């Protein structure tokens, strides 16, 4: 099969799966609903069905899709940025930093909601971006800017943030449900306000990433080569780092830390459609959103009680990832 045909199949399959995912999300849940119910609801909406279909299920599906797209795009950007397939939002410390902010806010009872975020969500967002700034500043101070330095600084800062998070959780053992939410993620509390808050940013970052994708292709040849070919390396690098940090911080702020999406989705996509960054960014966003949509379906329907979504993303993502890697060899 030609690469072009393979790409077409990939896009068609992704779109189809995505639409099917939204439909299934609307129809499944602890309250039994049939397609007939949905059709009747469209004909004559009532308060209960409206709340269940639109306010609870659709808002949740949309938020899951947006967060999945944000995480996968952030991961795709970082993997290109570091020229390292192990990179994901955890590596630069965004996720750990954001969860630290959330847990501190929860432990201190910081509830002031703003910008569509809860109090902990807002602090998660700010501390996620804060820790990346810190990592970046520390890396710069060591004379010049090296990818290895920022990678290692990020890992160290992330580890420190994780340790502090555990400390706060240990001190406040009564906020267990909050702890699970921030450490493993959930869309149980999804609402339209959150989707409306992050949607413009995810869209903006996607457009920017696609726009700068050619420069990312050049970076893959090495910074010197890219510079020689006319790529403003430092500026492009800054823009990509800021973009990936923003995406990951937004995701954590509304849904807690959801692992694996940022790591595996770009890999799947790269295996399926190749390494060119423009289609890679677009496809990662679509595939990431679709993947998380299905993971959330499992999280809320697999058992009577809701599972943290981080459990599902890892359990589903890892084996599939291994399979694809193996097949590639």
């Amino acid at each position, binding site marked *: 099969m030609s690469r072009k045909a393979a790409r077409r199949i990939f896009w068609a399959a992704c779109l189809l799966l995505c639409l099917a995912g939204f439909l299934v999300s609307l129809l499944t*849940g*602890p*309250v039994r609903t049939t397609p007939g119910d949905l059709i009747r609801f469209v004909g004559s909406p009532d*308060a*209960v069905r409206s*709340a*269940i279909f639109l*306010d*609870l*299920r659709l808002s949740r599906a949309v938020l899951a899709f947006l967060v999945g797209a944000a995480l996968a795009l952030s991961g795709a950007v970082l993997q290109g940025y570091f020229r390292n397939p192990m990179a994901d939002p955890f590596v630069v410390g965004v996720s750990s930093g954001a969860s630290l902010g959330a847990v501190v806010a929860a432990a201190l009872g910081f509830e002031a*909601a*703003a*910008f*569509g975020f*809860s109090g902990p969500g807002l602090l998660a*967002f*700010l501390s996620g*971006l*804060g820790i*990346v*700034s810190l990592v*970046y*500043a520390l890396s710069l101070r060591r004379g010049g800017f090296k990818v290895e330095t920022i990678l290692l600084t990020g890992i160290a800062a992330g580890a420190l943030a994780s340790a502090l998070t555990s400390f706060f959780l240990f001190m406040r053992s009564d906020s*267990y*449900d*909050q702890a699970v*939410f921030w450490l493993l993620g959930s869309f*149980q*509390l999804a*609402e*339209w*306000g959150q989707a*409306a*808050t992050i949607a*413009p*940013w995810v869209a903006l970052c996607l457009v920017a990433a696609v726009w700068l994708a050619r420069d990312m292709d050049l970076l893959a040849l090495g910074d010197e080569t890219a510079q020689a070919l006319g790529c*403003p390396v430092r*500026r492009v690098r*800054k*823009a990509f*780092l*800021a973009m990936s*940090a*923003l995406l990951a911080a937004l995701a954590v702020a509304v849904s807690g830390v959801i692992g694996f999406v940022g790591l595996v989705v770009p890999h799947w996509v790269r295996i399926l459609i190749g390494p060119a960054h423009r289609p890679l960014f677009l496809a990662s966003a679509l595939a990431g959103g679709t993947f998380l949509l299905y993971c959330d379906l499992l999280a809320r329907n697999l058992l*009577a*009680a*809701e599972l943290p979504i981080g459990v599902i993303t890892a359990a589903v993502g890892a084996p599939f990832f291994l399979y694809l890697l193996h097949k590639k060899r």
Partner: protein
Amino acid sequence: MKLGGQRNGDMSRRSVSPILSVIVAALVFLVPAYLLPGHQERRHVPAGHVPFPSAAAVAQDITDDLGRPFTRPGRAPERIVSMAPNVTEILFAIGLGGRVAGVTRFCDYPPEARRLPRIGGLVDPNIEIVRSLDPDLVIAFRGNPLRLVERIGKLGLPVFVLDIGAGLEDLPPLVARIGRITGTEARAGELAAELRDRIQAVDAALKGTASRPKVFVMLYGQGLWTCGGESYLDDVIARAGGTNVASALPKKWALYKRERIIRDDPDIVFILTRSTADFEAGRAWLAGMAGIGAVSAVRSGRVYGLDEDAASRFGPRLVDVLDRMAALLHPERFGGEP
């Protein structure tokens, strides 16, 4: 290309970290989202507060235990969702059993409550199921995750959140408040008065007792899990004429140390269990621990069972626990061993 050049020119002027600029930009650009009508509504109308336009609406406002105003519906609620077992017990006790539309899976008392639709557990109630029951009143408890309760309020359902009491004196007012929000003041007032009388009767019976036996309470199956000074059971023990040995622990519930029990030497041990078999197993487990056999309570055989559900739910049956505890601690005042 022209656009690209503009972008580069713009970026080269920056000297601060681009990520810091992103933070600033994010705050600036997030403001419009914040000003969306939906957000404003969410900000200014606390969850659970549902304005009733009806002229029949009672003007009298009540505040729930989170300090949020709650406007009482014009007519008594017909479909109540109870999010905690103690709330369910109180609702049934004031004759509202027929109007309860949903309960948690832990709501097993009175037995009729078991037949009602389940909304999930205490910490994992399902929002969708709550909404599908179409309640006109949701009574939540502080044991429910606050964020989940707020999400339910944002669906437009009237949510009233009750806090756990610090001591028995908070129980009659809790019953009375549930009566007020459900429009059953008379029946709830009677129950509140009855509970108050029974608590006072124990106080009166124990007036002037010189001894205050040392009490150790153990929740069977959780190691030496006991109630600390912040638990309402600490207050129940004090009112029953005893002294909780774990009273100094600044917690509601905590794991106690075996050495401390030996040092404290309690005169009487209460084991919270759900069945006689569990009680026997708990007593054997405790007596079998090294060093515990020498403790006064074990030596004298003053190890008794208490109904775990009655003791761990802040509801009417807590007064039964008080009666039993007082009679066991001071049999001389209550006409011999019960």
